[in-house]
């Protein structure tokens, strides 16, 4: 077998496995009919969508398979940031004090999935929304801007999330 075929098969099997896992979770019965229907559906959907789920150029497992222990840590950090930023946002809504700016910076993360998760997480942190993600270049609307220094702005907005994400994905 050529490497591309092995990679295609790996992607197909991973997608099917993930879909079947979700099916098992949401249909809590272990009857043969339920299992068979889930398996057929997972295989069909996996065959149709594995090219979308895992891009061909992500040719390493580390770029999309998370390290589970660090993923849990990251989710905890994310929830903490979510509440912290919501309190800050409530204060800004009540007082009307803000300094909205648009800042640009770059990220050190290499895989597509990790960058997507980073830009999603930035939308959670204190008053920031990712406007654009272009390769490693992020454009962010920052509601409580306190600097016009691009590198400093990047470090402040990304916070510790990027460091945590680097442990989860490549």
């Amino acid at each position, binding site marked *: 077998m050529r490497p591309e075929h092995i990679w295609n098969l790996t992607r197909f099997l991973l997608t099917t496995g993930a879909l079947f896992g979700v099916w098992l979770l949401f249909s809590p019965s272990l009857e043969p009919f339920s299992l068979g229907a889930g398996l057929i559906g997972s295989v069909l959907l996996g065959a149709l969508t594995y090219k979308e789920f895992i891009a061909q150029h992500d040719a390493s497992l580390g770029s999309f398979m998370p390290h589970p222990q660090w993923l849990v840590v990251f989710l905890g950090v994310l929830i903490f940031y979510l509440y912290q930023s919501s309190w800050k946002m409530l204060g800004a809504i009540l007082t009307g004090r803000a300094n*909205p700016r648009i800042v640009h910076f770059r990220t050190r993360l290499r895989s597509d999935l990790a960058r997507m998760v980073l830009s999603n997480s930035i939308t959670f942190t204190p008053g920031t929304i990712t406007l654009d993600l272009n390769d490693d270049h992020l454009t962010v609307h920052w509601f409580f801007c306190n600097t016009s220094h691009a590198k400093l702005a990047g470090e402040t907005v990304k916070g510790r999330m990027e460091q945590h994400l680097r442990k989860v994905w490549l």
Partner: protein
Amino acid sequence: MMLVREILALLFFASAVVFGIGGVVGLFRFPDPYSRLQAGSLAGTTAVVSVFFGALLLAPNWAIAARIIVIIVFFLISAPTGAHIVARFTWNSGLDPWRPPLQKRSGPDEDTDETERPRRRR
């Protein structure tokens, strides 16, 4: 034990109400799409996640708790993506971000930079 869980769940539901109201107030109070998205999406996400956490505390068994966790993860992926898509279209349409009046600014007061002019694509 059940009572403690119920009290904690009620606290989560109450905070969901507070965040939800805050989000709606922010939505009407701020003048431009970016700031409205900030208030609406962030407070809205926190409100819904709080409701899910309350439900997680009241979950009768592990199977239902696992499903709620999966729903939370899906919601954490989809909610900021929706806000990002709206913000991205606003940005691509070339809209300047709103600047609050000087006495209401929380950061440095320089206001003469021309570096933030939006790109004009169309």
